[in-house]
């Protein structure tokens, strides 16, 4: 049952009215249907309402259907702020700055990799550093790390990881302008120096997948997807570097909030006015972390491609393992949107939400001008992931945003308890999915039952019209941290 004050707007949205909590400047809108409404945590509703109290918020405080409780902002939260009156908050981006997803196509069919799948997964597991305490193969000198922070995926390409043609197919070209390496703490540099080109742990992964259903044949053609095809998906972020940037700036922002007399319902909402030096410094540091993440996914992709090439003894041309797209799902960006009929520049915070720009948007590369931006939604390791496209309706309703994943329904501890006495790897293998993980308990924590069904999350954004389904991908080989 929904709390009394909440009302259903339509089949896919509920409204948190602006009198739900004192101090709300706008209403809240949560994209859930009647099925996902049952999993809605009361604390998420509070968090959506808390964000609505922040100065300069425009439109509505929104949450996507994969919403769950986060720190300050809920995960799945989208909020846009006016550049004059509004604020910037690290809590609206999260600790893992530019956590995101990239998807590679190939010319391979499922049948081409099934016979050697176990070996291929082992090779990828050995080639791509993952898990607690793992070190990367790259060691960054301070000068090189600085170049990386300024250039993102471009740095990686210059260093020989991947091709220049990859850059076109990354959100923001894999490098967001305005990073200022001199604003980065020594601690962040130290954490970043051995973690470039590492997957991390938790829900981060590299998956070998296959396309099992196409919903939009024309769009799939443009993206280079066909039924039965092998794809590779990479989900990771800015690693310890980004976590340290967030940790550092939460302290700065807590002091700033009191300096600028911003009343905070929750310390994790610490923020500063967009035009303040504190906010501008955070954004410049956040951009450096975002670039770190784009370089990270670029390096990992490069090693994955090499592993396929070596294992299958084929050529890049034959393999056709090209980047489809790369999206950020934890980021704050200045973007143009229409508010009350007027074009306005806003600072859009997406925390566990994916940009979903429509066909014709000037920020899209030529190849996707007519289709709209590819949106990549990873699910849990046993079920599915989805490829969608951005729409005009997303632009009009959600500042060009959509969901980012499945969202947990079970705590890690509950999941471990539920998995007791079971061999999750064997259950997965029985379903034809080969998994490797560094941590002993990772597979239990990450098992399918611990997550919402990704299909119901994606169905809501599709039915709400804020993105549209192109293809469903099924996992075959999974590498976890």
């Amino acid at each position, binding site marked *: 049952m929904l709390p009394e004050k909440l009302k259903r707007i339509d089949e896919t949205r509920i409204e948190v009215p602006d009198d739900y909590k004192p101090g709300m400047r706008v209403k809240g809108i949560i994209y859930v249907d009647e099925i996902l409404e049952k999993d809605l945590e009361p604390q998420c509703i509070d968090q959506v309402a808390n964000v609505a109290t922040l100065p300069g918020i425009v439109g509505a405080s929104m949450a996507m259907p994969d919403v769950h409780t*986060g720190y300050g902002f809920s995960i799945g939260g989208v909020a846009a702020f006016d550049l004059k009156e509004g604020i910037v908050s690290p809590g609206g981006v999260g600790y893992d700055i530019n956590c995101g997803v990239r998807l590679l196509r190939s010319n391979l069919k499922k049948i081409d990799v099934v016979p050697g799948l176990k070996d291929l997964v082992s090779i990828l597991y050995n080639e791509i550093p993952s898990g607690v305490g793992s070190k990367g193969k790259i060691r960054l000198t301070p000068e090189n790390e600085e170049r990386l922070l300024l250039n993102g995926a471009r740095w990686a390409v210059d260093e020989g990881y991947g091709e220049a043609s990859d850059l076109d197919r990354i959100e923001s070209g894999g490098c967001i302008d305005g990073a200022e390496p001199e604003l980065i703490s020594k601690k962040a540099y130290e954490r970043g*120096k051995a973690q470039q080109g590492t997957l991390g742990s938790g829900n981060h992964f590299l998956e070998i997948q296959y396309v099992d259903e196409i919903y939009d044949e024309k769009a799939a053609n443009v993206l280079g997807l066909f039924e039965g095809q092998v794809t590779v998906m990479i989900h990771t972020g800015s690693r310890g570097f980004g976590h340290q940037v967030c940790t550092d700036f939460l302290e700065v922002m807590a002091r700033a909030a009191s300096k600028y007399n911003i009343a905070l319902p929750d310390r994790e909402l610490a923020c500063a006015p967009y035009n303040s030096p504190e906010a501008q410094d955070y954004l410049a540091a956040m951009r450096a972390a975002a670039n770190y993440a784009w370089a990270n996914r670029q390096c990992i992709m490069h090693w994955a491609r090499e592993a396929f090439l070596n294992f299958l003894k084929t050529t890049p041309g034959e393999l056709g393992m090209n980047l489809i797209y790369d999206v950020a799902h934890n980021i704050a960006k200045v973007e143009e949107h229409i508010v009350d009929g007027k074009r306005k520049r806003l600072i859009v915070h997406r925390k566990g939400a994916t940009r979903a720009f429509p066909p014709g948007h000037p920020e899209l590369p030529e190849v996707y001008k007519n289709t709209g931006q590819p949106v990549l939604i990873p699910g849990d390791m046993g079920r599915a992931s989805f490829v969608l496209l951005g729409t005009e309706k997303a632009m009009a309703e959600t500042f060009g945003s959509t969901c980012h994943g499945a969202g947990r329904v079970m705590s890690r501890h509950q999941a471990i308890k539920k998995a007791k006495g079971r061999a999750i790897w064997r259950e997965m293998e029985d379903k034809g999915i080969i998994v490797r993980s560094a941590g002993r308990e990772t597979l239990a924590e990450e098992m399918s039952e611990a997550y919402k069904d990704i299909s119901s999350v994606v169905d809501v954004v599709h039915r709400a019209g804020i993105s549209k389904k192109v293809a469903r991908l099924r996992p075959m080989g999974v590498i976890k941290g």
Partner: protein
Amino acid sequence: MKTFEVIDISGDVGIRAFGKNIEEAFTNAAIGMYSLITNIEGIRESRKIIIETQSDSLEGLLVSYLSELIFQFDAYGFIGKGIDINIFRLEPSPFLKATVRGEEFNPEKHERKLLIKAATYHKVRIEKVSDIWEIDVIFDI
């Protein structure tokens, strides 16, 4: 008296630590955190590091102290097993100095449990309940 227990929340994980005094509660919060990263029984106390941290509030001190330990682990692989809080004062502003005993984490040898990204202010609590100090802290995983 229990030294700490795990707080179960969806998505992430926390520690509830106990102590006869605040120093002991701070120590147990850190030991609890280390136990989320690995099985600390397998850690040897062959090295020690000294950390110092300060903040403008007691909660801030807790978060920055744990953040420092996360940093030492994530940047240098140092994992602790024992902690002595050498100085703990609240005036003029909260400050602590601690000696942490442990070793370099070795993924071949030590169990790999959770990768902790950060200590958060989410529902942070430092409170004296009857005669026991209690600390709640949630980590971003």
